[in-house]
């Protein structure tokens, strides 16, 4: 039996339920940090449980879930990102009096949802995973119950997310009607022999699916909720949304579009090319005016969704590899950046870019690591972001989309503007004569920053192992 591949999910679900139970016995005013550490132990257990499943490929639950290179890669990434989110949450949860049991259990459920999404071989399984992740994210976004910004963030996120789910579902129902199946491989087979419907119906189904996914990954023109939600959400949850929700949606899209809708490549790759250019341009231009660092990073993450979509526009194995590598580099970079933002807000320095004045003299580690992460986001060597962008660049040239590669380069140049603004604030404000109060590095945040910083540099300097892993992912292609 191939249940081996499900052990990580089972472990995480059991741990999440255990956390909820443990929280029920928690006394008033007692610290909930141990629940967070328990969750980290569970995640490490899941990472170990992933080990025996390496190399196994096949289907589980009658073709609902699948185990292959793509699944393994992103399951491992999801668990690692989960550990980082837990580490950066522990102090934040304590400080803001967030109910710890619910918070950590929901995070674990969200990660399980993401793992089901990346493993789904059937649109039904994908929908269940999507909703598991989405519902957990809604609740997490609203965890600061008395904070009006968090309330507004969750309302906007929920209404947009539910609308997006309904639109995706309508697309799925049309595909089911056209092909008589919801299996992704089944879609591909049905399109080869011809579907029972007109071309315009196929296009309508495709448009619904793409619009729904556009909401989920915050592609322009479906991005309007993203900046508000990212700004208002608790900061570790912003990191979670920008990496896990977005990343898992991209992975499912890879499987649905590259495998299931392979016969329609001509149609969707052109649409993605246009979406990619609009998304990266609008994201980068809007980021230039932001005063709040979370809002700036929200627009930056919209722009990055645009870069990743270049892989879909190219619609080749190279594009798939490039996207995989880019998501890996982007996930680690964003985790590190948000960890520093969490540290700043724990220290009471706020979320405005002005609050970062003179950070280099308060805490040199944070300031320099932020520079590394910004370099990675811009795409300057020797960082992982550079290589990710390079691979996507190569893919788009290989697919004869030189104008798209050019748009990427121009957009990277625009993005230097707002990242440099923050760096300038951190380093060049020397007007105060007295030595500013030092900001100590806390153990958990320090750990996240060191891990992600090291990984971002490894991805840029010694990338061969990870490039090999990413190119394995292209094996899902028919």
């Amino acid at each position, binding site marked *: 039996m191939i249940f081996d591949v499900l052990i990580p999910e089972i472990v995480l679900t059991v741990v999440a339920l255990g956390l909820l139970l443990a929280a029920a016995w928690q006394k008033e005013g007692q610290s909930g940090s141990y629940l967070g550490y328990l969750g980290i132990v569970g995640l490490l257990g899941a990472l170990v449980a992933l080990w025996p499943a390496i190399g196994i490929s096949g289907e589980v639950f009658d073709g609902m879930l699948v185990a292959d290179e793509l699944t393994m890669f992103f399951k491992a990434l999801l668990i690692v990102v989960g550990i980082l989110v837990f580490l950066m949450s522990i102090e934040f949860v304590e400080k803001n009096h967030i109910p710890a049991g619910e918070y950590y259990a929901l995070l674990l459920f969200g990660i399980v949802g993401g793992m089901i999404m990346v493993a789904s071989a059937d649109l039904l399984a994908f*929908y269940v995973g999507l*909703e598991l992740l*989405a519902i957990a994210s809604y609740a997490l976004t609203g965890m600061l119950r008395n904070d009006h910004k968090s309330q*507004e963030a969750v309302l906007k996120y929920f209404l947009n997310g539910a609308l997006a*789910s309904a639109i995706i579902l309508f697309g799925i129902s049309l595909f*089911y009607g056209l092909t*008589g199946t919801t299996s992704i491989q089944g879609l591909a087979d049905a399109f080869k022999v011809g579907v029972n419907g007109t071309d315009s119906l196929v296009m309508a189904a495709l448009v619904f699916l793409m619009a729904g996914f556009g909401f989920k990954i915050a592609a322009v023109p479906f991005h309007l909720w993203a900046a508000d939600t990212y700004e208002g959400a608790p900061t570790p949850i912003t990191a979670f949304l920008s990496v896990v929700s977005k990343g898992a949606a991209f992975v499912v899209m890879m499987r649905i579009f590259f495998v299931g809708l392979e016969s329609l490549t001509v149609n969707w790759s052109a649409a993605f090319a246009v979406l990619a250019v609009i998304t990266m341009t609008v994201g980068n231009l809007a980021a230039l005016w932001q005063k709040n660092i979370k809002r700036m990073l929200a627009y930056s993450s919209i722009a990055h969704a645009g870069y990743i979509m270049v892989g879909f526009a190219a619609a080749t194995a190279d594009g798939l590899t490039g996207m995989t590598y880019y998501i890996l580099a982007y996930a680690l970079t964003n985790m590190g950046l948000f960890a520093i933002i969490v540290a700043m807000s724990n220290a009471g320095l706020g979320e405005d870019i002005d609050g970062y004045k003179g950070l280099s003299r308060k805490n040199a580690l944070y300031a320099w690591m932020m520079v590394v992460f910004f370099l990675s986001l811009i795409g300057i060597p020797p960082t992982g972001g550079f290589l990710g962008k390079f691979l996507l660049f190569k893919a788009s040239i290989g697919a004869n989309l030189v104008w798209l590669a050019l748009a990427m380069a121009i957009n990277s140049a625009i993005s230097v503007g707002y990242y440099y603004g923050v760096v300038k604030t951190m380093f060049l404000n020397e007007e105060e004569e007295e030595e500013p109060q030092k900001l100590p590095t806390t153990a958990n945040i320090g750990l996240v920053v060191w891990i992600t910083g090291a990984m971002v540099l490894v991805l840029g300097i010694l990338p061969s192992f990870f490039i090999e892993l990413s190119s394995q992912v292209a094996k899902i292609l028919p």
Partner: protein
Amino acid sequence: MIPLHYYLIVAVILFSIGIWGALKHTNPIRVLISIELMLNAVNLNLIAFARFSQVDMVLGQVFAIFVIAVAAAEVAIGLAIVLMIVRERNIYDINKINLLKG
């Protein structure tokens, strides 16, 4: 028997009403109801296709049950969110919830 496209036309009309309502209304509960309409259009689609499908009749019906179950969970959290905001601020209009912008 009523032909398939009758069901599909009703479903499209339901879906359009839902999307129009979700975009037009400013009361969050009304938006929620509109989204439920859209989901019901999806269910109608799935069940009609399942009834007329030659291959696999159960699949569409099972999918519809999943949609109903998950939609219930979604509504539960949606109502909790609206209640949280209404209790504290007594606002029923999403246009007045506008701290975040730019």
